[in-house]
């Protein structure tokens, strides 16, 4: 089967696999897991947080983010020269896994840490790096992302927000949607059209801007989810001035910049652990005899264990210079489906109305998760898009 040439053959076959080979976790990473776990246990017992489903999207807690930053667990992969900690992506991976598995409130710094910092490092100017990276690593600078628009969901290349050249910068006009945390973040990345749309080159003429959310002309309106929570926003940009020094990368190369980070965005542990705190709560009830010990639970454990291996293998390959769009799409497709199956399992057992024996309320978690579930397989590339990415990787399109 066709695959990225940078991906090595799988252990059990000489043919290149769709996903890179599994890797063995060295002791040093395991020790780091234990450090994070000890910290989490302290935080939970001191009442700093209660485990939630989808904590990377919904649980905005700057105090917790700063506590992580004090332990150097934000901006881990940012070089020391920019105020970061010069750690490896695998170190960041295990810290992230531990936090997500525990349902920790990591939403405030999430976008800045996962996407903004790597993009700045790759495409930013020295001035931009010095301006934002040290504060991101300190847990003091939170970001959002402005990609989707009311008329551009999965088809991102059709964005209509436009930026026109003016003296000393650009004037940006348009509407972005699904920008999580825009009402609390300091700035966001905006993908805008800087040249007229060309049907022959749909991906050309797009540029990324760093837009201060406090700029005149920015209006943030909450989008209330069916859960009643409002972590998403619609952001209107009404002739917002963006100075030249806040253009990210080269004008016109916005598409390549945006898509180059997709491997990291799609293969991470947030793509299979969003509902894990619910599974933990279900196991608590099964262990105490409140819910039945069904084989579907074991099946779920197996799937998550394999997804952990796969996600880690893709991260390793990414860190070692491979592009992994296809294997990341595989992780995200299977992982987000598995997240939904956790919710399905809990609900089929009756967890929605179960009075919890102890620990976080399993009924409340189930209800939260039932409402979050549709989003699992939509955000960051809908499953139908991922099927297409995989089909292309197999040489079918």
């Amino acid at each position, binding site marked *: *089967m*066709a695959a990225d040439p940078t991906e*090595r*053959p*799988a*252990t*059990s*076959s*000489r*043919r290149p696999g*769709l*996903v890179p*080979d*599994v*890797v*063995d*976790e*060295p002791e040093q990473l*395991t020790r780091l*897991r234990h450090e994070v776990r000890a910290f989490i246990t302290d935080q939970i017992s001191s009442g700093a947080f209660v485990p939630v489903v989808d904590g990377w999207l919904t649980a905005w807690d700057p105090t917790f983010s700063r506590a992580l930053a004090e332990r150097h667990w934000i901006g881990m992969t940012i070089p020391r020269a920019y105020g970061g900690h010069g750690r490896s992506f695998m170190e960041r991976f295990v810290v992230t896994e*531990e936090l997500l*598995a*525990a349902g920790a409130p990591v939403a405030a710094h999430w976008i800045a840490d996962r996407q903004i910092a790597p993009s700045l490092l790759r495409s930013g100017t020295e001035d931009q790096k010095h301006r934002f990276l040290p504060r991101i690593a300190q847990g003091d600078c939170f970001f959002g992302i402005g990609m989707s628009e009311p008329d551009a969901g999965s088809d991102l290349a059709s964005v209509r927000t436009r930026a026109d050249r003016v003296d000393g910068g650009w004037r940006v006009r348009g509407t972005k949607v699904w920008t999580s945390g825009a009402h609390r973040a300091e700035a966001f990345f905006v993908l805008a059209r800087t040249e007229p749309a060309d049907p022959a080159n749909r991906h050309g003429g797009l540029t990324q801007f760093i837009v201060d959310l406090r700029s005149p002309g920015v209006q943030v309106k909450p989008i209330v989810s069916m859960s009643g929570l409002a972590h998403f926003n619609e952001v209107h940009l009404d002739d917002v001035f963006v100075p030249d020094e806040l253009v990210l990368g080269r004008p016109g190369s916005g598409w390549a910049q945006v898509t180059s980070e997709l491997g990291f965005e799609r293969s991470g542990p947030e793509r299979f652990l969003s509902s*894990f705190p619910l*599974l*933990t*709560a279900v*196991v*608590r009830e*099964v*262990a105490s005899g409140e819910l039945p*010990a069904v084989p*579907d*639970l*074991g*099946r779920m*454990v*197996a*799937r*998550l*264990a*394999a997804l*952990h*291996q*796969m996600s880690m*293998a893709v991260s390793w390959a990414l860190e070692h210079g491979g592009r992994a769009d296809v294997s990341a799409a*595989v992780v995200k*497709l*299977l992982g987000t489906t598995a997240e939904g199956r956790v919710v399905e399992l809990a609900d089929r057992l009756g967890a929605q109305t179960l009075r919890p024996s102890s*620990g976080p309320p399993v009924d409340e978690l189930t209800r939260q998760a039932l409402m979050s579930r549709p989003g699992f397989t939509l955000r960051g590339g809908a499953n*139908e898009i*991922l*099927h*297409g990415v*995989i*089909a292309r990787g*197999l*040489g*079918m*399109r």
Partner: protein
Amino acid sequence: MSPVVADPDVVDLVDALFSAQSARQDSSPSASSDVRLDTDFWAQLESLGLTRLTGDVASGGSGGSWLESAALLAAAARHSVPVPVVEHDLLAGWLREEAGLAPSTRLSTACVLDLDGTADDVPWAGDAEEIVALWESEGRWLVASFDAAECHVTTSRNVAGEPRGTVRIDPASPSAHEVSSSLAGLFFHRGALARAVQSAAVLQEAVRLSVEHVATRTQFGRPLAAFQAVQQLIASSAAESALCSAAVDSAIVHAVRDGWRDPDLAVRIAVARSCAAEATAVVVANAHQVHGAIGTTMEHRLHRLTLPALGWRTEFGTPHHWDEMLTEHAVQAGPDGLWSLILGSAT
């Protein structure tokens, strides 16, 4: 930290060998789906040291690890070349070494006898010249090798036409060697992991074959590959197959790193088998769906991948068995140990 992989020379060698043998098989197709052992090819494997790949060098083996063995099993499976390597090397050969029995080059299979001296569904029982048996007697576990002529074998076949058989032995053997009671569990787990390796390989190949088929088959004036509905079926298959391979590879890496007596290995094998069962369901259904009716014929190659996958799925433990076992582990781990269980107990 880096991927753990088999010796690439071995990987290339076995792929070339089984590819050539597959071509020979195809040149004289059989009208029946019954699988037969090509004894000339087996002799060739033996001369290359591949029939006792994981055997101790001191007793005539090749000293390979499970990584190399997995490469061999995968090559045989994806080229649809039936050989009793699991039985002869990983089970019978291993049992002989564990029990301190003399090595044998005669074709062997192995089984665990029940209290009546019977074992069902013993692979290649009718072809084996020797049967290495493991049984419990008055609280002691014993191993002995029997000449096939001394055993009563009733042959049968699994759903893929592979030889199986019920073996009856009078185990009052004077030359039985006592072994550790843990061997029966290990025997089962070794067989289970080997079947998972074979399954992962045929599923990968079924996906490859599906991709090939939809690229060349034209309907409504377009290749099938151009239809999104078809792409989705194959993308789902490819994803499931990749997840299965990740789970299987990780169990093998675990076995090679921590050894077969590591208590967590059973969990890794259960994970591999559970994922393989799931992948078998999706890949078999979707591969047949995209191949259309031709894929269901004796003439077409597809059933030589899909039927073994279905047969192996319930050998050395059913999917239900592995799922239940993992449920028990999850309950024992409890809410505080669940995450560690998923990562592997060492972490």
